[in-house]
């Protein structure tokens, strides 16, 4: 699977200008000699992250956005009509309920299909963050089938809770897509921002523990003094960072994923299989469901 991560640096709230910019990137990618199979973009990729009350003016219905994105790709490919998958973060308006969402879209020459919409479950509402004031939280963590295998999407803080990638992996995800918007902080030492180092550390640990690819798409640009730390990256199931974008500015990173890496990594370090065997006991010990009987011991 050949993937491009588009690290967008949107003009705040100017959806049409930002779509036009993305269309130009699509045209650039469509012209590649070897076709791209998937394009991944950050959280709030077309609006900017901090919208406050303007989120209600700049939210999309998922299908409306999907049609726009499909149209952009079809215009970019012209008569060549190459298929592509697009994963992108956006503010969603679902009949008057608003979410911080990510959609995964498959685009053919003359049609498109939304394969999944993930609604952010952990809405950061502390310090500089205020999502819970404006948005509703998603209720489900689902994996979904694509032509490249099963995947899951986690949006920003979703991925700071280790249980989320764990559940995604248990539910069969082989690729974890993480659209994010992370305001940079921590300039103490070491040539890197503390927040960037933390992100890389948690994402790498998930890749290694569960033997999966992690595709991280970070938003870029300053928003009212808060600088988003791009740093888009793709990490393989051995924990190696295959490609990474700079912290500042708009960029595209490009990589080809070899899915046999997943099988090799999981055979070498079978933690996910071990977890599958032990998880029923752990869940029982959490005493979430008092009526539950202890599961029978796995062979």
């Amino acid at each position, binding site marked *: 699977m050949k993937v491009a991560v588009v690290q967008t640096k949107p003009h705040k709230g100017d959806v049409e200008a930002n779509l036009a910019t993305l269309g130009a990137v699509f045209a650039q990618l469509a012209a590649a000699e070897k076709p791209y199979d998937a394009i991944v973009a950050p959280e709030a990729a077309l609006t900017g992250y901090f*919208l406050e009350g303007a989120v209600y003016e700049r939210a999309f219905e998922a299908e409306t956005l999907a049609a726009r994105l499909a149209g952009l790709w079809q215009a970019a490919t012209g008569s060549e009509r190459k298929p592509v998958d697009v994963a992108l973060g956006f503010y969603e308006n679902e009949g008057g309920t608003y979410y911080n969402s990510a959609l995964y879209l498959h685009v053919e020459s003359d049609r498109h299909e939304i394969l999944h919409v993930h609604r952010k479950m952990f809405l950061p509402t502390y310090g500089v963050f205020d999502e819970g004031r404006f948005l509703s939280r998603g209720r489900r963590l689902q994996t979904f089938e694509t032509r490249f295998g099963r995947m899951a999407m986690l949006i920003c803080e979703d991925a700071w809770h280790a249980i989320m990638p764990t559940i995604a992996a248990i539910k069969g995800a082989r690729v974890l897509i993480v659209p994010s918007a992370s305001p940079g902080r921590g300039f103490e030492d070491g040539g890197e921002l503390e927040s960037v180092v933390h992100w890389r550390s948690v994402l790498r640990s998930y890749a290694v523990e569960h033997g999966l690819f992690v595709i991280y798409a970070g938003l870029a640009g300053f928003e009212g003094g808060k600088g988003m730390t791009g740093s888009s990256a793709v990490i393989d199931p051995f924990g190696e960072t295959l490609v990474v974008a700079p912290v*500042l500015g708009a960029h595209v990173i490009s990589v080809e994923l070899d899915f046999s890496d997943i099988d090799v990594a999981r055979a070498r370090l079978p933690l996910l299989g071990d977890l599958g065997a032990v998880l029923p006991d752990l869940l029982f010990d959490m005493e979430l469901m008092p009526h539950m009987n202890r599961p029978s011991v796995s062979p």
Partner: protein
Amino acid sequence: MTELLPVIEAPRHRPPELRIDAALATDWLVAFLQDELIERRGVRNAVLGLSGGVDSAVVAFLAARALGPEHVHAIRMPYRTSSPDSLADAQAVIDALGCASHTIEISAAVDGYLQFEPDADARRRGNVMARTRMLVLFDQSSKLSALPVGTGNKTERLMGYFTWHADDSPPVNPIGDLFKTQVWQLARYLSVPVQIVDKAPSADLEANQTDEGDLGITYLEADRILTLMLSGRSDEAIAARGFAPADVALVRRRVEGTHWKRHLPTTAMLSNTAINEFYLRPVDY
């Protein structure tokens, strides 16, 4: 006889080091200025008040990197009692950068008003000077098609050691989240003339005035206490880390007494569309 095992002890609480990676911070702040001025506002020029102190010197150096020195307008605004050294130190910055510079005396403007207020004490006179400088800065920004850039640091913002709606007025400020001791680190990295970095900071509103004399505490001590305070430590916990309780109390009093200076004016709310209460839009929307 059993041999005793070596015990490795964790270090005790150390005072916050306030260290910054100056190269990393510089790249970040240069990108911030470029985004805010050029990309967002389409403004190519910056105007700033160059006092001869380290804060405005650092901002001038950052702006010169971000915009090119020819797009930075450094304005010196001496009053008749200002120290000649301040003017000379500001000139050293202008010479080092090769930026555009202007010297605009504020004595006549300040005295034009104060002649009717002969009893004004030093505090009132200082505030009139600071507000006159801001008037000049904003007018020059209009004349020069430039954006005023602020030079207030985090320590003075937290201690309320500034004139409200004067020093804090410019629409962008690259150093407002850096403590004074961090501004000094950045100054050394940026090669700000050494006499500016090494001299005792002063608002230069009165003869022989120093910041640390006014505040009653050194910047290093204040910055360490502020760091612990802002991270949620109680006064007792800070004192337990070796700080004098009187210093902790002084810093606490200054912070707690000046929250209003870090906000817009208090507006009576009567509707459910009150601006910045219900009607919430980000500054860059």
